């Protein structure tokens, strides 16, 4: 947990807290989410029962452009793109089809895309935005915390807003003062929700 500035697991049972610290670490590491979390406080009380995870995310402003995942080689009448990373290939093709038309875009093999007679310069192609990694982040975080929280805790309330998130889960109906609890946990990290 080197990348996270603050990481605590609070639980009335010290042994349980230790295990859950390990579980939280393993799950976030598996889902590749440690690098986006700045502060994280987890509170579990099996007697109530309630699971609360509150945290602050690192600001993610970068977007993925064509130039980040492909080498663009302009040739006579066509432009060949050599793909190095496939994650955003599908969304890139979709954008090309919409912008240039399907007849001008060809993918002869997995790692090559050829554009025929497109009226733009190679530099401009490289600048086209094809992905926003932060968009799927909330979904990934919710999934990860569902794995961390005890399985019986199926009633959930999640909030993701301006780089701050809270995830509350319980086996019983969530009590009304849950906002107070979330606020108190944020305060432990020196933050406000």
């Amino acid at each position, binding site marked *: 947990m080197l990348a996270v500035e603050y990481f605590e697991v609070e639980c009335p*049972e010290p*042994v*349980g807290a230790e*295990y*859950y610290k*390990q*579980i939280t670490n*393993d*799950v976030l590491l*598996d889902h590749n989410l440690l690098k986006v979390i700045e502060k994280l406080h987890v509170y*579990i009380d*099996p*007697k109530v*029962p309630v699971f609360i995870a509150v945290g602050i995310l690192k600001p993610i402003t970068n977007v993925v452009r064509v130039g980040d995942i492909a080498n663009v080689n302009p040739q006579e009448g066509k432009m060949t793109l050599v793909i190095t990373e496939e994650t955003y290939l599908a969304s890139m093709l979709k954008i090309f089809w919409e912008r240039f038309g399907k007849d001008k875009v060809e993918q002869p093999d997995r790692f090559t895309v050829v554009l025929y007679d497109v009226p733009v310069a190679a530099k401009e192609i490289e600048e086209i935005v094809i992905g926003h990694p932060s968009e799927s982040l909330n979904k990934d975080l919710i999934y990860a915390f569902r*794995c961390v929280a*005890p*399985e*019986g*805790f*199926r009633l959930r309330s999640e909030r993701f807003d301006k780089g701050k998130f809270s995830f509350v889960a319980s*086996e*019983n109906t969530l009590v009304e003062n849950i906002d107070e609890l979330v606020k108190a946990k944020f305060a432990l990290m020196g933050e406000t929700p």
Partner: protein
Amino acid sequence: MTLVPVTYKGGIYQHDIVTDLIEDLGGYVVQKHVLAQEVVLQCFVPRDDIELIREISRPLFGEVTDSPLVGTEIAVVSMSLEIHHLPHPSCDIAEYVRRIGAKSNMVSLARGPGKRITGLNDEERDVINEHDIAVYLMGNFETCIEHKMPILLRGIEVPVVVCGGPDKETLIRIVDPPVEGYVGGVGRFMRRTKEADQLDKLDEIIAEITRVLEKKREDLAKDPLSVSPARLMNLIRERVPAILEVTSPTPLTVQLAGLRVKLPYDTFAPALRAMEIEDGITLGDVAAIEPSRMRDYILVKVLPFSETNTVI
């Protein structure tokens, strides 16, 4: 003649010499796995003849090791089939006991997770009761384990080993009604068991299972079975050829006091009941043949000497 469970590992070349030897000595091969150039036999052999098997298999580079769990069927009870419990630790433990020779089945509960919402239905209870021992894999919180165990143990008649996050002393204190075995420090975790300390924990589970099963074996020895389940296995294989067509890994699963026959009950139960073992004694005379709650399998429960007055 005391038969002891052992595992034989050796090359596939001339391994039939060992198989024949085991059968000639009066032992039984319970499971045979052929993996590329290697063969693994899980068998029961007479205690006094282990050295002889070692001697004869030496030129074949064979290795004979003790496997106390051979011939047992273990239920690994997982609270659910969600990512929270699988593949670690449920599969890790189920696989580890398999390596020592046991046949392990994973029983996952429909309403296992949670504290208030937890429950055990009649099918789950009956399936667990069909095994020799049940290993309950619980979570990390003692509050939950304390609350859940009375519900999850309702109607369970087989010995139980409870694994959970809190230490062994805490488990002994909170589990009510008391069970036969406890292993602390093995709760829910989300990583593969590959470090030395984690493997030690798995060994601790094996030791606890072995201890509980040994006790059950001793109890069984006080009133011996009318016929050895391993012998029945060989007989059924000879007399009921349909078993050879079954594609499941162990068509005949040997248990401490019985046998699971993976054939449809309605079609094959009468034939099994009428199967002659020796001197006109049929299987129906020395065993109860019942439908299993697991698919439509047959469960053969061998009766003790005190009930049949025969030992064959």
